[in-house]
């Protein structure tokens, strides 16, 4: 079973919930994996502190032009949909970060001057913490496209496990690709206007992908009606509330887990009974 955790707005508590839920499920005897899909800035490992067992390179294919065979006809540059190739006065220029690895240039080249070579854009770290498998994708700094890493992460899902997907913030391609195919999505939000605004966008992402979902209100307090009124109106289930508590903030700031915290426990127990056991 794949459970994705997203939010729209950043900093609402995706990683807090995802890391604790993974550890909690594992402690309750469920076969669980934690996967950090926030490849641009993964931070789940700060809390889980796993021993890294394996590092897997993530490569993409880019064209390599053999200047001996290239006749500067420009067919490759003319047909590249991503402007990754240009025909300068007497040579072809490659802009590899714009390349989407479609391979069209190598098929079109009339002299066979273009071959495809691998280019590393990041890696996947696989680790272990108290029997819990912890996985993170890490895009190299300066790289514009995280999707190849997200696709590689998805290949590490285990069928008989609960795969906890810690999604990136926002609602970009990275988020859509991360949550696509989930059996359930947990939308973590906070009771602010900004939280609500981005929650609505996240709701439209999961609805469009036909993923069943519920909302968790983090930093819950007297402003909760901002979120609750919307959820009642849209018939969305609020499956948990994490209080705006000093103890939680204190532990978070030290990179500690919260599985002993009573509010966290009750939220996670509710997720287990309403999502995991129903499946």
């Amino acid at each position, binding site marked *: 079973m794949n459970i994705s955790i997203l939010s729209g707005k950043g900093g609402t508590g995706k990683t807090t919930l995802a890391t604790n839920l993974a550890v909690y499920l594992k402690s309750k005897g469920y076969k669980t994996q934690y996967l950090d899909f926030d490849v641009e800035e993964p931070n789940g490992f700060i809390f889980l502190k796993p021993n890294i067992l394996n590092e897997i390179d993530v490569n993409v294919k880019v064209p390599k032009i053999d200047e001996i065979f290239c006749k500067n006809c420009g067919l490759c540059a003319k047909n590249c949909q*991503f*402007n*990754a190739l*240009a025909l*300068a006065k007497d040579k072809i220029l490659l802009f590899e970060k714009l390349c989407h690895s479609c391979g069209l240039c190598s098929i079109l080249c009339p002299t066979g001057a273009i071959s495809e070579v691998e280019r590393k854009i990041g890696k996947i770290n696989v680790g272990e913490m108290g029997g819990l498998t912890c996985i993170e994708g890490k895009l190299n700094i300066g790289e514009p496209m995280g999707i190849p890493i997200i696709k590689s992460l998805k290949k590490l899902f285990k069928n008989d496990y609960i795969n906890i997907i810690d999604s990136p913030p926002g609602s970009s391609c990275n988020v859509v690709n991360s949550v696509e195919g989930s059996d359930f999505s947990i939308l973590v939000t906070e009771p602010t206007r900004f939280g609500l605004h981005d929650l609505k966008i996240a709701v439209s992402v999961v609805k469009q992908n036909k993923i069943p979902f519920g909302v968790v209100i983090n930093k819950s307090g007297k402003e909760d009606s901002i979120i609750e009124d919307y959820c009642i109106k849209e018939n969305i289930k609020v499956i948990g509330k994490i209080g705006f508590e000093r103890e939680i903030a204190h532990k978070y700031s030290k990179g500690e887990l919260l599985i002993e915290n009573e509010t966290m426990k009750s939220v996670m127990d509710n997720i287990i009974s309403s999502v995991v056991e129903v499946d």
Partner: protein
Amino acid sequence: MKICITSAGENLDSSFDSRFGRCQFFIIIDTDTMKYKSILNDGNISPHGAGIAAAQQVVNAEVDVVITGNVGPNSFNVLTESGIKIYKGQHNIIKDNIDLFNEGKLELITKAGKSHGGI
């Protein structure tokens, strides 16, 4: 000499556009005859790599010189690899920049500016 200048409009009285990849039009002018034509910048509608698409168009037009404001690293590379010299426009009207160029008063751009300068 054939020069290309980045423009917000289609004629010599138009406003100069200091952006390269995201300008509306390129005005291509022959400084010997002062005959000119304007072409729509394809780069302006590119979701990615606007500068490269724009530079490719300018290279294809076989110009000797480009007058613009800021050129990002990708377009700078395409233009200079094609032997095109780049000058920094100083005036907000197209034809005044051409006059300044003819008088030798425009400064040569010798290194790439910041990327995504036009967004």
